[in-house]
């Protein structure tokens, strides 16, 4: 059964009820056991668990160190296009926003320039991003960009629109290690309200995309909900389900979870369910206890002070020194539309120094071209 069918067993009312009715005793049970169930996850996401954040944090830190050691991986995003056919009310790339700014898709030589700039800053892992424009930036174009990036980086991942299995197979052949695809919100009604046009309107098509990527041989699958669109605890419950589903079906792919949070910005969109720092922390801790072996990413959407705290509470991977506009590192100017404003503007080296101060080793390289093709003698 596809995940889009499986999730129907847990409609919003049922999940809300389960989370709201969790008792302190249920939270303690969830803390005590090793193999946690969905009932335990609901308890850890519940209001009753708010008074257990410290013991949850201790457990989360121990589990993270057990499976990942004292390390934090670093990566950088490269936006290769900001063209977008979708109209997602929360997004800087939405077809109807940023009318005075430029829409571009980087040419090959510009991708080279961007890659060179990032490789010089120490990065060995990049995430290529586009908008939702499968007609103008088709899978072949993304695969070509990935091949260029692979000349500079041992690990290339992508965060693009949902594809057919054949599209993911093209990426896999181009050496793409990971695919990130946020469901944005797992609540079907909210999903409908915020996605106003394009292929992205299809909730189930998007929800089942990572399974297609896994079947195409993509080695790392990253899920996420855009926090702020719907109740964060329910999103956490569904993400936990989704993660376990992918671990079961795509058993040769590693799982990661991202925690992108919409912040209060003066744009045309006000997130209906803003998530506080304490709620974000509770979500990360609950997810760590439910998915101990999953990688957890935190982007530069979050401010430096919070990121500094979260490196020891379950996060295993961070972006640094990011730009969210195509050409933003070297090849283009500020007249190009960006997706969102970053909060942590520190340089990669400053972020790495912070990681070292926290007693952790910043890891730049954690993958090799040799996994997917014969490589030249270094």
């Amino acid at each position, binding site marked *: 059964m596809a995940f889009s069918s499986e999730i129907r067993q847990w409609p919003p009312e049922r999940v809300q009820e389960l989370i709201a009715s969790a008792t302190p005793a249920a939270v303690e049970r969830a803390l005590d056991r090793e193999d946690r169930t969905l009932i335990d996850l609901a308890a850890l996401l519940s209001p009753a668990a708010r008074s257990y954040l410290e013991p949850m944090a201790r457990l989360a830190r121990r589990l993270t*160190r*057990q*499976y*990942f*050691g*004292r*390390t934090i991986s670093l990566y950088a995003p490269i936006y290769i296009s900001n063209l977008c056919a979708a109209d997602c009310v929360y997004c800087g790339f939405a077809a109807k926003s940023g009318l005075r700014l430029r829409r571009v898709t980087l040419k090959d030589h510009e991708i080279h320039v961007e890659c060179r700039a990032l490789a010089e800053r120490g990065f*060995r892992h990049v995430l290529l991003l586009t908008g939702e424009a499968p007609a103008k930036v088709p899978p072949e174009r993304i695969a070509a960009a990935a091949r260029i990036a692979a000349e500079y980086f*041992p690990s290339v991942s992508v965060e693009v629109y949902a594809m057919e299995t054949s599209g993911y197979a093209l990426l896999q052949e181009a050496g793409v290690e990971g695919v990130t695809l946020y469901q944005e919100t797992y609540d079907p009604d909210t999903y409908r309200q915020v996605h106003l046009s394009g292929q992205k309107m299809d909730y189930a098509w998007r929800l089942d995309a990572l399974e297609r990527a896994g079947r195409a041989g993509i*080695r790392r699958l990253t899920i996420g909900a855009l926090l702020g669109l719907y109740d964060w605890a329910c999103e956490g419950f569904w993400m936990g389900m989704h993660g376990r589903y992918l*671990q079961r079906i795509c*058993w*040769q*792919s*590693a*799982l990661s979870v991202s925690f992108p949070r919409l912040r209060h910005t003066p744009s045309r969109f006000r997130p209906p369910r803003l998530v506080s720092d304490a709620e974000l922390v509770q979500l990360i801790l609950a997810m760590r206890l439910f998915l101990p*072996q999953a990688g957890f990413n935190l982007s530069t959407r979050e401010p430096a002070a919070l990121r500094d705290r979260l490196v020891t509470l379950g996060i295993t991977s961070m972006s640094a020194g990011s730009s969210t506009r195509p050409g933003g590192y070297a090849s283009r100017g500020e007249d190009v539309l960006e997706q969102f404003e970053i909060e942590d503007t520190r340089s990669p080296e400053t972020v790495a120094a912070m990681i*070292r101060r926290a*007693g*952790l*080793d910043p*890891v730049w*390289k*954690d*993958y*090799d071209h*040799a*996994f*997917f*093709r*014969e*490589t030249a*003698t*270094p």
Partner: protein
Amino acid sequence: MNFSETVNPNIFSDPLVIADRTFRSRLMIGTGKFPSARALREAVAASGAEIVTVALRRVDLSRPEEGDILSALDPNRQLVLPNTSGARTAEEAVRLARLARSAGLPPWVKLELTPEPKYLLPDPVETLRAAEILVKEGFVVLPYIQADPVLARRLQDIGTATVMPLGAPIGSNRGVRTRDMIRIIIEQATVPVVVDAGLGAPSHAAEAMELGADAVLVNTAIADAADPAAMARAFAMAVEAGRMAWRAGVAPERDAAEASSPLTGFLFETSGNVGPRD
């Protein structure tokens, strides 16, 4: 009787030999989880380890850098044992091994073929295939395997330099959970048996050595300790103690205290003969 050999076995007269190379230390160290290159260097020094395994996916062989894993190791004192961690198929592992050799690392490889990233359990089929190819190409192959005595025999028949059965899943710190199968592997071994993965405390390492393992490999338990160097030293001592105990002949386990001959003692008793009477 030779007092020094039977009563005080000297660890230095009992070297570990793998593929004709002699090692004094029976503790191997994994490197992927240390907080810094410096912590790794200190732990390796404190433990006296002479075999240190390095994930090829984590090192940049084309441009070695200050502060990376390789910079923490001294090739004159430690054998840098490249491992294929992250490989899912025999082909991937073979490519990684060739890459390491062509970059100037010794032609030794710890085969790690773990197609499922959750528990990182080894794939017996791909491991056997990769071992066949790499042994033929002249590599010294040390395969990480499930504690499967038949697989261990198949691998040593192919010509691997060791077998490395897991005590418990990587990073689980659960100790020698596969004890019964490891006993059989050791009993049948014609190559050194290295218990790898799952050893969470020095007492676990001692247990593996008391069983007769030739060496152990530890990563998480040392890297994650509050003081990795001190924990590395503690593991080294436990490995020596366990080895010494095995050589001295560890007494078998008993369920309860026993009289010396509770079942047959009657045969030799001077009175109360229970046999047939006249």
